């Protein structure tokens, strides 16, 4: 039985049928248990809700060093012994993205996170809501006037880019340039690259980093009322001042982290609405349901499918022994449909008890720091879109008729989201 399951295991990281329908794939592996050892890639896969929370909360035994590169890229060293903490730190620079905040461990993470946690407070988001409101009104009016749009590139991407740019205080002149750099880069977790991805001089994080360095230097001299000033002049909990380069890394990462994920969440939400006119009408009649709608989309089709951890020492997950050096794939998209946690998990139900406990934003120390912003910006755009239309439909000229839809998903093993979403918008 076990042997047979292994022989038929599809490769999550390369199989394009998995890309089209990751949910069907996750259900097919769920029968192997909420946590199992995959022989295909020599990693441990977690699909259970409880099991995922257990790993995500256990920062003692699991490092995030491999979160950006994913669990399938080989480690930059051969694990030795029952505790590889020192090896991870000695080779951190060789992990792809190992110097990004999501990859930090221990005190370094705690310190950087203490700075980020102050940024998207309710009062700060309220102060910026006016800009988000007026910009989304402008975009939606334009699209409704022309009868439809390609949502991802015409609305979602410029919208999330400008919102974070405005929040951070990126000068208007530089925003367009940032957009181009981001648009031309593959999404995180790219499945199409023939060589392993790298952060070369054209990668968005590197290009933007040089700009952010200038901003940080400037804001240390001339603080203003923006997040960049707050970041640039922040201190660590022990009272020390972070290195300017560290602030540059944080700001750049913040700018990049929310781009694909938020834009794709808009796509996933609006595709669902376009396919369910009764749901549209329900939300139009009572826009106060929109936040619950967003949470249920996050659960069923959040824009992050998985993240990764690396066992630092010999440990276990839900009783399964896991040796130091073992990469772990945490399939949050599978955990969010675990029937042990969610009654009737395949049904879309905005009234679920304790819905916001889904794992679309992760859990524990590395929980998405941008979630408060993502929720606000997606809510506001949906409010405008629903208020200004009587009917949102898929454009069948591009996506085919109902029952035979053609939808292209971004070729990423991390991100779940459409590359294009053509809509017809009736005023």
């Amino acid at each position, binding site marked *: 039985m076990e042997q047979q399951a292994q022989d038929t295991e599809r490769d999550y990281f390369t199989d394009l049928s998995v890309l089209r329908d990751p949910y069907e794939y996750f259900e097919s592996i769920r029968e192997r248990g909420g946590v199992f050892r995959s022989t295909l890639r020599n990693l441990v896969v977690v699909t259970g809700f409880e099991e995922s929370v257990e790993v995500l909360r256990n920062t003692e035994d699991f490092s995030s060093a491999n979160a950006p590169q994913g669990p399938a890229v080989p480690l930059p060293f051969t694990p030795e012994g029952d505790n590889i903490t020192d090896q991870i730190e000695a080779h951190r620079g060789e992990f792809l993205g190992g110097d990004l905040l999501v990859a930090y461990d221990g005190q370094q993470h705690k310190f950087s996170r203490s700075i980020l*946690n102050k940024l998207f407070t*309710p009062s700060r988001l309220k102060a910026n809501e006016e800009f988000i409101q007026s910009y989304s009104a402008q975009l939606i009016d334009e699209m409704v006037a022309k009868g439809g749009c390609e949502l991802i590139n015409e609305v979602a991407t410029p919208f999330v880019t400008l919102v974070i740019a405005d929040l951070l205080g990126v000068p208007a002149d530089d925003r367009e340039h940032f957009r181009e750099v981001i648009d031309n880069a593959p999404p995180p977790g790219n499945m199409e690259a023939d060589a392993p991805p790298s952060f070369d001089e054209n990668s968005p994080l590197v290009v933007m980093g040089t700009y952010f360095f200038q901003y940080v230097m400037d804001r240390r001299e001339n603080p203003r009322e923006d997040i960049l000033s707050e970041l640039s002049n922040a201190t660590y909990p022990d009272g020390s001042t972070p290195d300017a380069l560290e602030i540059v890394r944080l700001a750049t990462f913040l700018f990049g982290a929310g781009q694909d994920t938020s834009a794709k969440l808009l796509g996933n939400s609006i595709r669902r609405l376009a396919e369910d006119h009764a749901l549209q009408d329900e939300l139009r009649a009572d826009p106060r349901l929109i936040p619950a709608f967003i949470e249920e989309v996050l659960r069923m089709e959040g824009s992050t499918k998985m993240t990764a951890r690396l066992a630092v020492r010999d440990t276990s997950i839900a009783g399964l022994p896991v040796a130091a050096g073992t990469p772990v794939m945490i399939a949050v998209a599978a955990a969010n449909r675990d029937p042990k946690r969610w009654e009737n998990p395949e049904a879309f139900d905005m009234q679920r008890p304790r819905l916001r406990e889904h794992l679309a934003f992760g859990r524990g120390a590395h929980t998405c720091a941008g979630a408060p912003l993502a929720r606000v910006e997606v809510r506001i755009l949906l409010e405008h879109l629903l208020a200004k239309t009587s009917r949102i439909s898929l454009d069948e000229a591009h996506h085919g008729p109902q029952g035979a839809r053609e939808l292209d998903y971004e070729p990423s093993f991390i991100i779940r989201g459409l590359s294009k979403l053509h809509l017809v918008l009736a005023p």
Partner: protein
Amino acid sequence: MPSINVVRLDGSVDSVAVDPEGTLMEAIRDAGCDELLALCGGCLSCATCHVHIDPAFADRLPPMSEDEDGLLDMVDNRSPHSRLSCQLRLDDSCEGMRVTLVEVG
């Protein structure tokens, strides 16, 4: 590093050491008290790190911001001793403080 007593939802009491360079939420979470959900990771947006603080220690804590106050207004079982643990850093004057976890409403 002060040690505090955490009263869990089942009534049991755990002694937890609190790193003065981290928050109370982080200390309780990392000590394995899973019922403290802390869903937002300390961003001051979820109120699921809500705790009740020993009144005798209230004046040793940093003051409450408007944002924390506003967020606490949205929880079910707010009391005069309510705080959001992600907003609290403790020093040695908090040694022995009792912190009671609260059911998420």
